């Protein structure tokens, strides 16, 4: 049986992410204080609170419609760097999904599309110390574990994202606000990579059947 993700699971994912962001908002802002402008937590919390409200208010006929709303909501409520980046991710992610449920392959393709959007918008590469450092190894690990099923692939992705996040900590930032610090950015954990790990961990916790 090929497991597939329906719109309820996608919704659960988004709610779980909103919850995780809310819970970790102070921590994200704290990380952003060290190498940014002390707002990543409040930015993301504002955005995901708006997304949760949109979920409450509307029924969505399909995953593409759902993620279009999510992406637009983030773009219009977050601002800063993370708004366009997460917004673009969800817009592209949803655009790559079909109308029906998504299996492990379709989900992988959608993740790739979303990440491509982030890279196109932000022009960051792995090693620039941004959320891309969490995303890239995550999708790589997902691809590698895809044969073991959705749950395994998502679990592998979440673990790889966390490793990617940590691998960026000693680096000097080359993109985003942290780059202004030059050498002083080294040794600090990137806030955007940290929220990305929360997103993928939420996916692992919600998208696959337990």
């Amino acid at each position, binding site marked *: 049986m090929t497991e597939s993700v329906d719109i309820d699971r996608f919704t659960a994912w988004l709610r779980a992410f909103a919850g995780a962001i809310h819970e970790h908002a102070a921590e994200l802002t704290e990380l952003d204080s060290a190498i940014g402008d002390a*707002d990543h937590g409040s930015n993301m919390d504002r955005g995901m609170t708006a997304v949760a409200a949109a979920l409450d208010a509307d029924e969505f006929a399909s995953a593409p419609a759902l993620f279009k709303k999510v992406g637009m909501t983030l773009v219009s409520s977050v601002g800063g760097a993370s708004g366009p980046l997460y917004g673009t991710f969800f817009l592209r992610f949803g655009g790559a999904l079909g109308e029906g449920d998504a299996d492990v392959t379709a989900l992988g393709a959608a993740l790739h599309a979303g990440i491509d959007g982030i890279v196109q918008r932000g022009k960051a590469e792995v090693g620039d110390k941004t959320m891309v450092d969490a995303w890239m190894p995550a999708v790589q690990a997902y691809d590698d574990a895809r044969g073991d099923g959705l749950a395994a692939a998502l679990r592998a992705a979440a673990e790889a994202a966390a490793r990617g996040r940590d691998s960026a900590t000693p680096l000097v930032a080359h993109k985003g606000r942290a780059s202004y610090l030059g050498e002083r950015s080294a040794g600090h954990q990137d806030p955007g990579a940290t929220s990305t790990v929360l997103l993928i961990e939420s996916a692992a916790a919600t998208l696959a059947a337990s």
Partner: protein
Amino acid sequence: MKKLINEPADVVSQALIGIEAAHGDRLRIDHEHKVIYRNGPPRAGKVGLVSGGGTGHEPLHGGYVGVGMLDAACCGEVFTSPVPDQMLAATAAVDGGAGVLHIVKNYTGDVMNFEMAAELAADNGTEVRSIVVDDDVAVQDSLYTAGRRGVGTTVLLEKLVGAAAESGRPLDQLLELATRINSVGRSMGLALTSCTVPAAGRPTFELGDDEMELGIGIHGEPGRSRVPLASAAEAAQLLVDPVLGDLPYGTGDAVIAMVNGMGGTPLLELYLMYGEVHRLLQQAGIHVARCLVGNYITSLDMAGCSVTLVKADEELLALWDAPVDTPALRWS
């Protein structure tokens, strides 16, 4: 946190209420989109100038909306770029048929959000050009980084390009002018204290009593390096040297100079600093043709200052002297 605010989440919307109450005779506020407009419809044939960015830099940008400067300013959350919806609404509202210039400070968030707005506005048939100001010499510029931040030159550019727009100059020439101004504008700043973002509730960074941050931006980001607290004379040198070192200057070159306070430094100190800066420029053979001393692009309640120099020829000086009538800059 000691601030004259109510709920941190309401700072921007409530400040806009105050701005409307104070300047309703000249400004109009779209509270939904958090955009500050000049009163009245767009002038046919005049290019619309839209700027914006995070709130917390007042009087930038809202204080510069008015005849001879901006047509609209989009207000993001504190230190957070506005979202594309805002710039899109502003762009549509100020377009008098001659297109719209976006004045963007080079911060990843601002650039990406303005970019999305410009794409959407273009889809709607509005001609949009963007100037991304990146004048902060504290940041090393390179193809592989986010590049320099946009800081003090933005103020001077909004004035100069605003004057040119008022005189009816077409969009592409305004972009050319803006590009030229940005290429001759350089800034450097320092902080004596951190600012406190309302939503965070405490200072963004800790700074010892005998330290200061050199090479700060305008968002309470820590600076490029932490150095011992210095006298005004030394501080002026620390700001002027890298600014002068970054562009070729010849004897007799004229500049528009700005000594800008970060929000928590009183005018008394800014004038004292200006005296030091002026002396150093004289020593370097540079002629200060015009100057601004005061709080023009701030970082909430941060104590500190920045120095901006824009090399100025006769054309720029004439644009500088052209009438301006905004809440924060006003002359005729």
